[in-house]
């Protein structure tokens, strides 16, 4: 394509690479490696842990054996290696009976009420799970907001609720109440009916796209289900091709179908040609065909674009 002005990139990628090198030099001196004396592991691994942590314990943990994490036949799973201590760290001290009056030695634990740092907790999960879906975790909003993996995931549960269609939204709504309210509106995507999950549009583990979208752009995300609108059309409607969100509220709206506002006012935010597009249509209008029913779409129904040779006005 041709542009009136060929702009330079805001900054070149090469500069970023050089900058990265400088940052590496900086941080080498600034961050001292932690040198911790490693506590020892239990003598019998999970069998040691299960002496106390059985199904009758206050914090039953055995359901993990019915999950992928508990499958000892998968060499990638924690239970195939250092078992419980693969995630919870060496538990030898913890397994020892404390002296009378002393507290049992702590073990590396997960959650908000533990002493284990956020980076360490998430780092343990990312040791195995830094894959093509989570390679940009640090760049995502959830990481920047200091979220823990276990804020959303129940690792020991047989069916982690956030991975199920019915329960996932409950987890997301814990923080995203406004989105919960948006999905209660009259015109919505079918999230509150359990027919769509947040993760169908968002990669919550971090992407480099806006708002953690699964597509590179908003439109590419929408086109995953609405391919008929991607064209290219002979007579394209420019805002459609640019950003679906210019006219639509993607989570929900009071204006069907998920529109930001009603026609004709929605259309009149951009269309001001002489004659009917530029006229005001109030409740006392003498030209109701421009206002009532489908309003502008009484005639211009091909608002997403037309491939008809005579579809210039999006009427064919």
């Amino acid at each position: 394509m041709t542009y009136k002005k060929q702009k330079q990139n805001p900054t070149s990628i090469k500069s970023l690479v050089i900058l990265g090198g400088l940052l590496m030099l900086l941080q080498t001196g600034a961050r001292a490696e932690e040198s911790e004396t490693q506590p020892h592991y239990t003598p019998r691994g999970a069998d040691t842990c299960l002496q106390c942590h059985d199904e009758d314990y206050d914090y039953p943990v055995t359901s993990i054996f019915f999950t992928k994490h508990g499958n000892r036949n998968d060499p990638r799973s924690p239970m195939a290696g250092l078992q419980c201590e693969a995630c919870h760290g060496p538990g030898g001290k913890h397994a020892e009976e404390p002296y009378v009056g002393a507290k049992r030695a702590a073990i590396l634990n997960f959650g908000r009420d533990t002493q284990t740092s956020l980076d360490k907790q998430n780092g343990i999960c990312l040791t195995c799970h830094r894959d093509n879906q989570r390679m940009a975790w640090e760049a995502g909003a959830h990481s920047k907001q200091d979220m823990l993996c276990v804020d959303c995931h129940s690792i020991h549960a047989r069916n982690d609720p956030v991975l199920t269609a019915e329960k996932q939204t409950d987890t997301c709504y814990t923080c995203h109440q406004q989105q919960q309210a948006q999905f209660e509106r009259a015109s919505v995507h079918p999230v509150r009916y359990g027919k769509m999950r947040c993760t169908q549009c968002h990669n919550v583990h971090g992407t480099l796209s806006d708002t953690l979208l699964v597509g590179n752009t908003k439109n590419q995300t929408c086109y995953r289900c609405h391919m008929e609108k991607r064209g290219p059309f002979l007579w394209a409607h420019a805002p459609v091709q640019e950003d679906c969100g210019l006219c639509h509220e993607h989570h929900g709206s009071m204006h069907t179908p998920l529109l930001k506002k009603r026609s004709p006012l929605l259309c009149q935010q951009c269309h001001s040609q002489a004659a009917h597009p530029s006229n005001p249509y109030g409740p006392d209008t003498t030209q109701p065909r421009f206002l009532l029913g489908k309003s502008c779409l009484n005639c211009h129904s091909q608002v997403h674009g037309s491939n008809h040779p005579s579809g210039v006005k999006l009427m064919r």
Partner: protein
Amino acid sequence: MRTSVLICLPVVLASNTPVSAQPQNEDVDTSQWQCKWCPGDERKVEADVEGGLGYVTNDSYKFGDYTGLNEKGAYILADADASGRYENGTYFDLDARNLGLDSRFIGIEGGKQGRAQFDISYDQLPKLNSDTARTPYTGDSVQRLPTGWVDAPTTGGMTMLSSSLRDVNLSTERRRTSVGASFFQTEALSYDLSYQHETKKGNRSAGLGFGFSQSATLAIPVDYESDVASVGVNYNAKRWQASVSYQMSMFKNNNESIRWENPFSAPANTPEGQAASEPENKMQMLAVKGAYRITDSVLLAAVLSYGELRQDQQYLPITINNNITSPPSLPRTSLDGKINTLDANLNLHAGISEKLNLQFQYNQHEQDNTTPRDTYIYVTADTPPDPGDPYPSRKNLPYSFRQQELQGEVQYRLNQQHKLSGGADYEIYDRTHQEVESTNEYRLWGLYLAQISKVGLQVRLDYADRKGDAYELVDDITPPQNTLMRKYNMADRVRNKAGLSLQYSPLPILDLGFNASLSKDDYKNSSVGLQESNESSLSLDLRYTILEPLTLRALYALTNIDSTQAGVDWQAENDDRMDVFDLGLLYKLMADKLNIGFDYTYAKSSGKITVASAGFPELTTERHSFKIYGDYNLSKRSYVNVGYLFENYDEENWAIDGLTVDSMGSVLTLGEQSPSYNIGYFTVSYRYIF
């Protein structure tokens, strides 16, 4: 851009140690780690199966939207959830929901863990839009009026209209079948394959006109098919990860066009019209993603994808009006439309110290529309031009876009309780064939996070200023836009946003939350078009275990969206308000043998519109939803569930309420009315856990 990303790849390839499954310690003696008390082997399969009956007390499309519970009567309830884990690592997970409804889903995943994974699913989604539409037309892609139809200049003169009206429900249904497989060659190397086929069938309403004054709204058929296939290869090493994937998707429309008879006697000599359906298209995309951990605290991540979207469906004729004896000819027989997309992101995240993190990101999104441009002489809405008038013509405008953005961010952790972040972004947005060739926007933001004892706090402020090049009319568009119009996606704009989030957990059994946000967009140089848009929202939520067996959750959320826009000599105001109140109570009795729950949701929206100082009646939607349910544990593995949902819905919409098919003389509508219902839904089911 591509060259720059490639520069990084040799660096990425420098370290190729496969990812470790878990922290390894060569010194750990695991010879006695037999896991003999580990459960799992003795119970290979677990299943949770539920079956029963539901009864809906009234018909309503709105109630049945997305669920399939649209008709009065009984429904079969059937859900299942099963999983199996076997000694050799093979497994399966089955999830089946709503099997007795049109919103059914069934999915099975299985394989040998760590070696291969397969999945297959079927998903059905009904979208029910209206059950109050009426039309005199019959047919699908060719729609005819009844024999003996009396046309007239306005609907009032169509004497056969009332006797020929028939009910037509407006709905579509998606049916999606997906299959996928993943193969893990090593712990680090894996391959993905997937294929999805979807159909969407039904109908929708569309306004189709003749000339510039008459139109009819029809229920036109929807018959789409789409196929998506993808392959990918992933490599996950300890310090770097990479994936390459290729996706192809094809959209097919089984209706090439919609053809319909003109119910009006005007315009003269215009008996029939034809409109194009969405054309078939095909997209291919190749994507490369990668991340490299340069040091323990410096991470470089990049995404590069290149796509190609094509559309070359044979054109329909310029007109099907036989009264136009020598219609103009087409410059080509099909569009040969092609858009190349390039999306690139490069992110550098650096932990300078325990307290300081820096992040830089560059984004580029480009749609390069290489569709050929031609001059099309056209016939407006199948209507013959006035004698002596030439046919109008227009060159097509293949819009291209390029968005480039640079983001810089600093995160500074004051201590374990407090963290400050701030950033600056700069964006250049280039467009072709539009009023503004280039806009640029800079954004500044700051975020404060605090976790002090039982209080979590977030405060965020944003400021953005967008300016564009000279606003110039597009020569090819006739009639031209008003020279004062400033389209809001390209207009100069100042945006201010503020957000506050507070979470307070005074007791382990009590969580309180408060969120508030304000956003104000000022289109300061727009004398015609959108001038101002504001959004404010707040929400309060509560989760409280009142007594050990009684838990309560509650949410109230309010959103206000108001805007001001202007014409040349008029102004319009929109003021939308949306309220949601949600309450849930769960009471566990008899040592968890009996659970009783109550949910109530109230969702209301109201819209006030004023045009040139004249106010419209309020637009409203209001829904009360009460649900009471209980499950009784008959034995360790069996339950009886009963439930009753009562829902009341009402909508007031002046654009369609009271509007009959012939209310507007020049528009023959479908006469759809706003939905309104009172519906009860009883359920009783039996659940058994195997």
